[in-house]
């Protein structure tokens, strides 16, 4: 556990802090996520790696707390998505997705309105309707921006 923490602690805390700030809540989230990883050890799909599970759990827990703080209703988490590998084959760009710099570059190159929408929805934990309300744009536009953003990201990673 110490080795896993020393490898991923700063990344996990960075993710929690991006959503919750450098607060005691962010620390709680990281602690809960590390213990959850350990408890789930026998169920984890080794092909997906610890990092991916850990970050998904940190993110979900951080968003959960953020929404509670803002008195927004809890998001319904898709239980099948984070911890069960449902893809029959790894996606073509799986290797590029492992490369942090490539992912960051792909995100930085998104058109500003798409990047902002991903930022608000994913890191801000807002639903498409809530993003639409804040940006005062139609909810359909938010949905297509998310679709276009992930499409851009996929092409950027697929061509590397």
């Amino acid at each position, binding site marked *: 556990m110490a080795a896993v923490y020393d490898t991923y602690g700063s990344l996990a805390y960075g993710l929690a802090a991006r959503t919750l700030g450098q607060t005691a809540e962010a620390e709680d989230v990281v602690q809960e996520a590390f213990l959850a990883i350990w408890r*789930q050890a026998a169920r984890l799909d080794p092909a997906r790696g610890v990092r991916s599970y850990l*970050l998904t759990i940190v993110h979900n827990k951080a968003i959960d707390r953020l929404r509670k703080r803002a008195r927004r209703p809890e998001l319904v988490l898709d239980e099948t998505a984070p911890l069960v590998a449902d*893809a029959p084959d790894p996606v073509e760009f*799986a290797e590029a997705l492992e490369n942090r710099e490539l992912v960051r570059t792909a995100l930085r190159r998104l058109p500003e309105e798409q990047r902002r929408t991903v930022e608000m929805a994913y*890191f801000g934990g807002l639903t498409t309707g809530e993003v639409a309300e804040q940006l005062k744009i139609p909810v359909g536009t938010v949905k297509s921006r998310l*679709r276009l953003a992930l*499409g851009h990201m996929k092409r950027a*990673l697929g061509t590397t």
Partner: protein
Amino acid sequence: MTIECEEAVELLAAYAMNRLEREEQAAVSEHLASCRLHDAELAELRALVAGLPLDVDDVAPPARLRSSILAAFDGEIRRADKPAAPARQPRAGVLGRLWRSPRFAYALAAVLAAISIGLVVWNVSLQSGREDLLVRTYDRGGMTLRVIYLQDEKVAILEVSMPALRPDQTYQAWKIPESGAPISLGVLESQGAFAFDTSLEGIKAIAISVEPLGGSLQPTTAPVVVQEL
């Protein structure tokens, strides 16, 4: 609320991100349950979403967090290692020996937490002579595997003793179903007992193969151990 393919495609990215409104999220799930056309795209989108956290900067956490996590971790192990006031000690034999093995304590704690079996229930089961216990042993060519399956709790414990592998290799255990492809149980070290929260219903054998470090989605080599159940 029901939706058709065209709408599902529009919503899939927000769905993979889990950011649709509750009702829409449910409608997409319902559509996906009956329409397999979106499986590949959804897998790609989920992989992309899982990559989004990599955009954050590392932030060094306060030193107290490390000690706090390690203390909590130790607490979990201790709880697994010292079950609350059993009326008498667990029986000797396979389970008794396993019980005292530190590695088993780790594995057991994982299982206990994962499937929420109370330690009290566990103890009562141990003392009651357990009729739901399936034990199979393989011992050939320097490879030993003991499969202990607690049918009621759907917990499989694999106790292995096998030759050490190269650093870039790992042992991986598989469930071999009556029909269909092997199902990964997970990676194993060469020695120790490993518990899995899994059902062996409809499984005809447990196999172990040598795989690249990190394991494989499907076996890439012939199994070194196959034990029928």
